[in-house]
């Protein structure tokens, strides 16, 4: 294929041809082309089908505002739908396919929808598919989904990677058109840290699309030279291919940088990087977008925005048509004519809606002032236009200019409310701007080149000065102000054919009138009812036109009608980029215990417990079921000795003259009189009286305590203790630091625990029952001088200790304990066995401290001291929390011991229906006790402590089971605590 529409000039590299495929046909373009410019160069006009009516559609714009030219880019798992051909950089081997058609693009079978259009007008979903109700899910929705919608996902996992990052700057310049580049130059010259971001792959914005002069050189040369100057400044970070998609609080901007999208392959690097930019000040130089005029059948391929036609000619060296006509309501349309004529294009007609003097004369060109296009013809592309007077003009490209909309998108992301400006017939930024944002150039209504350059230059000076930098004395780049008069002309009333306002959503002038007629009077309602301005382009070309039509039919001014506002993102951002690198196992950090390496070597099965990886059980060879391993671990521990890594418990070092008083405040029970060298169990309440954490606290010295918390609440307890320390009692001398990570801690439990410890504890320490009784603690040394702490506490109910060493010794200690314990058949046990043993002993854990239970419920009512102030003690005294029929923690056993209990089951009195009214309580924890050879459980039931021996029904609605259970003491094993004290 030859590039039939390629002309000389432009910023493409003619010595670098690029091969690509569109709908499986091979074409050649040049380096520097977009997919859209390369397609136009090859004479391809028809690029897709419209959303609703499957109308043939072509390229409308030359930028990210494109509503029509959406393609599926790449193939296989890399396929990306709804990609704008106007922003896709051409690369060798690029493959793209058009979207939204069945069968070939030229003969879309769904084009039948177009004939059905009388039935598919605004709101047709709401009107048509209401009845019968059952048809919605079964018939309507699947059919609509299959018929409508744009591109298709590959259905495979995204093979690309993404990343995120943080950038900081004094001044962020958004957009690199005349205003942006002038601002960046001055900001950079002042020495400030500057980021210049532009969604395009070259800097300069419209400067690259024009043939104007800046400072004596062509606008394209000026853009290139300014880019070189900026690139040479170490304080300026140039970010091409970067879209600032959102303006957030306090100068934070979201940016998406396309790192490898312009390459055939990303080579294993992140395809895109999502940046959070922290700026002291931001200069928004977003420019403006041209808008179309609506007229009959104005959606045929070949009908484009005039500025886009100019861009293709000047920047890409492509003439989108051989016989071009121009339809304009403003001076700028004439510049398109003169630029194109200079490139040798045949201008067949200039139709200006205004009754003014022509702005120029062209050879063989029909000039019609006060003219209107009422209709067009051409099946897959425009071939002629029909004027109001019936005159028909042959043309293969209509360049339409309906004026320019300042690009106010980012100014609305917080509380901005754009305001109508009559003189430029456009909305300009108003209301509260995002903190630190200034808007310059066309985005702020400075619609000419000279004004934009000047605007950017002066604002940068002002802002640099405000930030304490000295602006350079260089003057603003010089340019002439071009003719820029415009008029408010929106759509051709004389057209009887459908006139398209929003080509992406197939919204016509008639649809807007209909929606108004049906009572949708506010612009927000109009948008929702007609879908005007929705989807990937967010109405960048259609919104203003739509609300102008709305204003007219409702007899209001545009200013009175107002505008819809924008929210992030400015253009679509792939979900993958928001995820960044956080995928699969990288979703969250992983915490490893000190015994992890040893446990892994020995084949332990691990479970995630919060961020921790903990050994769940330690299978022995030959064991085929997890219960076999867990039962063995429990029995061996109770028979001789077992070891469990309990490092994950939170540990907080508490020191200070007022440490004891502080503990009295955070624990419901008293700690003031705890002797040095002793440990006490403590209960923490929320201020509302609900129990939230428990643990033990050891007094190592008069002013030195070490607290343990549950694994799950370690962070929360620390935070709340800091709250008490800083916000309630900063007068107390108390200091906290986490030592969770500092100490590797092992529980050593079972009748032989002391014998095992005596083998490794240095001889100078006496740990006999007399010298080191239950609830004793001390700082000792083990294995010839390794510092350690020993606590005689028990979660299992056995004679037990917790031994802590600095974490660096944790790995060596588990190996040493296993070695020294051989003669006692020492058994490592995991989280499951730990759970079974604590249920057997009746110790509450997270299942019982579940955010709904009080100390009274837990059977710990006596632990709420009335003699002192403590968090939660006052509100736990409330009547409703102290009812006679309060639920109490008790044990449960199945009447049929061959059956298993289920956690979550609710209790009802035997013979009663399992209803809410009869609910007596619920089961919290269950396990199989290999000692009692039955399933056992802990749970709460009304007046439980007075109902020991009663048989009740456990109803498990989730699993659909009902069984009789006996209420028993929660202490299944050693209720008198003799083992603990042995």
């Amino acid at each position: 294929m030859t590039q039939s529409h390629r002309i000389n000039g432009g910023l493409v590299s003619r010595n670098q041809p690029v091969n690509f495929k569109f709908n499986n046909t091979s074409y050649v373009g040049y380096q520097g082309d977009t997919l859209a410019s390369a397609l136009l160069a090859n004479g391809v006009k028809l690029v897709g089908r419209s959303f609703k009516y499957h109308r043939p559609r072509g390229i409308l714009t030359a930028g990210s505002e494109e509503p029509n030219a959406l393609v599926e880019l790449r193939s296989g798992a890399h396929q990306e739908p709804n990609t704008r051909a106007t922003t896709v950089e051409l690369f060798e081997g690029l493959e793209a396919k058009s979207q939204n058609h069945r069968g070939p693009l030229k003969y879309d079978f769904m084009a039948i929808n177009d004939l059905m259009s009388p039935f598919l007008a605004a709101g047709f979903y709401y009107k048509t598919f209401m009845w019968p109700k059952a048809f919605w899910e079964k018939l309507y929705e699947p059919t609509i989904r299959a018929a409508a919608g744009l591109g298709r996902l590959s259905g495979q996992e995204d093979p690309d990677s993404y990343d995120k990052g943080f950038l900081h700057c004094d001044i962020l310049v958004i957009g690199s058109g005349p205003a942006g580049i002038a601002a960046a130059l001055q900001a950079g010259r002042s020495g400030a840290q500057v980021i210049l971001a532009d969604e395009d792959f070259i800097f300069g914005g419209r400067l690259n699309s024009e043939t104007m002069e800046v400072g004596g050189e062509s606008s394209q040369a000026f853009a290139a030279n300014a880019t070189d100057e900026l690139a040479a400044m170490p304080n300026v970070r140039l970010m091409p291919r970067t879209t600032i998609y959102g303006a957030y609080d306090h100068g934070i901007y979201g940016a998406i940088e396309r790192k490898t999208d312009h390459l055939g392959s990303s080579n294993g690097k992140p395809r895109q990087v999502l940046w959070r930019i922290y700026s002291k000040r931001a200069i928004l130089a977003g420019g403006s977008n041209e808008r179309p005029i609506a007229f009959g059948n104005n959606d045929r391929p070949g009908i484009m925005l005039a500025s886009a036609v100019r861009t293709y000619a000047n920047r890409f060296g492509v003439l989108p048509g051989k016989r071009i006509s121009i339809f304009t309501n403003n001076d700028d349309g004439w510049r398109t004519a003169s630029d194109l004529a200079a490139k040798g294009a045949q201008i067949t007609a200039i139709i200006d809606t205004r009754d003014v003097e022509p702005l120029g004369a062209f050879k063989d060109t029909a000039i019609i002032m006060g003219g209107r296009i009422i209709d067009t013809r051409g099946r897959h592309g425009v071939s002629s236009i029909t004027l109001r007077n019936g005159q028909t003009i042959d043309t293969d490209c209509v360049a339409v200019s309906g004026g320019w909309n300042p690009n106010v998108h980012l100014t609305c992301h917080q509380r901005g409310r754009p305001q109508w400006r009559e003189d430029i017939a456009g909305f300009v930024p108003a209301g509260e701007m995002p903190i630190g944002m200034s808007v310059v150039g066309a985005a702020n209504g400075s619609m000419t080149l000279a004004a934009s350059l000047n605007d950017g230059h002066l604002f940068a000076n002002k802002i640099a000065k405000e930030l304490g930098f000295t602006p350079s004395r260089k003057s603003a780049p010089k340019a002439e102000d071009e003719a820029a008069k415009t008029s408010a002309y929106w759509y051709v009333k004389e057209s009887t054919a459908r006139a398209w306002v929003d080509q992406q959503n197939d919204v016509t002038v008639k649809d807007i009138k209909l929606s108004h007629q049906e009572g949708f009077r506010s612009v927000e309602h109009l948008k929702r009812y007609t879908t005007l301005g929705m989807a990937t382009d967010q109405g960048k070309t259609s919104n203003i036109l739509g609300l102008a039509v709305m204003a007219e039919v409702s007899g209001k001014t545009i200013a009175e009608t107002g505008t819809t506002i924008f929210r992030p993102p400015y253009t679509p951002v792939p979900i993958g980029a928001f995820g960044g690198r956080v995928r699969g196992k990288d979703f969250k950090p992983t915490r490893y215990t000190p015994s992890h390496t040893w446990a892994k070597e020995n084949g332990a099965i691990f479970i995630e417990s919060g961020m921790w990886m903990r050994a769940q059980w330690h299978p022995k060879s030959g064991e085929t079921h997890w219960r076999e391993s867990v039962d063995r671990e429990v029995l061996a521990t109770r028979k001789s000795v077992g070891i469990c890594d309990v490092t994950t418990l939170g540990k907080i070092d508490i020191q200070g003259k007022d440490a004891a008083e502080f503990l009295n405040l955070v624990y419901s029970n008293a700690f003031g009189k705890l002797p040095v060298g002793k440990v006490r169990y403590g209960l923490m309440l929320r201020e509302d009286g609900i129990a939230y954490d428990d643990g033990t606290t050891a007094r190592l010295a008069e002013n030195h305590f070490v607290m343990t918390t549950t694994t799950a609440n370690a962070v929360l307890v620390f935070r709340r203790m800091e709250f008490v320390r800083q916000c309630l009692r900063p007068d107390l001398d108390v200091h906290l630091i986490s030592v969770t990570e500092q100490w590797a801690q092992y529980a050593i439990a079972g009748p032989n625990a002391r014998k095992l410890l005596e083998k490794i504890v240095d001889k100078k320490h006496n740990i006999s029952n007399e010298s080191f009784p239950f609830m004793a603690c001390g700082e000792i040394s083990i294995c010839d001088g390794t510092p350690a702490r020993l606590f005689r506490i028990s979660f299992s109910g056995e004679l037990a200790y917790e031994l802590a060493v600095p974490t660096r010794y944790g790995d060596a200690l588990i190996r040493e304990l296993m070695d020294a314990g051989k003669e006692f058949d020492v058994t490592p046990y995991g989280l499951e066995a730990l759970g079974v043993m604590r249920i057997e002993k009746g110790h509450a854990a997270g299942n019982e401290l579940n955010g709904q239970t009080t100390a009274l419920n837990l059977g710990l009512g006596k632990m709420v001291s009335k003699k002192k102030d403590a968090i939660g003690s006052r509100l736990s005294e409330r009547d409703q929390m102290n009812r006679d029929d309060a639920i109490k923690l008790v044990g449960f056993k199945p009447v049929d011991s061959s059956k298993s209990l289920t956690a979550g089951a609710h209790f009802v009195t035997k013979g009663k229906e399992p209803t809410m009214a009869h609910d007596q309580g619920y089961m919290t924890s269950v396990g199989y006790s290999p000692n009692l050879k039955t399933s056992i459980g802990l749970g709460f039931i009304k007046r439980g402590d007075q109902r020991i021996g009663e048989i009740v029904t456990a109803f498990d609605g989730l699993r659909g089971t009902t069984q009789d259970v006996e209420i028993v003491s929660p202490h299944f094993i050693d209720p008198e605590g003799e083992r603990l004290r042995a």
Partner: protein
Amino acid sequence: MIINHPLLGPRDAAEFVYLGDASLMNRPDWQSTDAGNQFYEYQYLRDNPAGELRELWYHEQGDRSWLVVTRNTLTHAISKVELARDVKLQEINSKTKTTAAAKKGKKA
């Protein structure tokens, strides 16, 4: 959002944990006659203004300071940031002074 930490300068709000109304610093006296009522109000009754609010933020991924942040809930504009401990200490000290002055007055 950015919180301008009084000691460390501007930090991303992501480093902080939000708690809520700074009235939580005014925990009632457990021995006062209507302590039950006071604790009920302390725990459950909060203003929710569309405008300036003094709030508690904890710099968990930072220096572990609790801060009192005066923030406009409508615009997110932050007008004041203080160390909670300073605010509380000032209150405790002024109370002590008042009590001391009252005692002194009695004596005189």
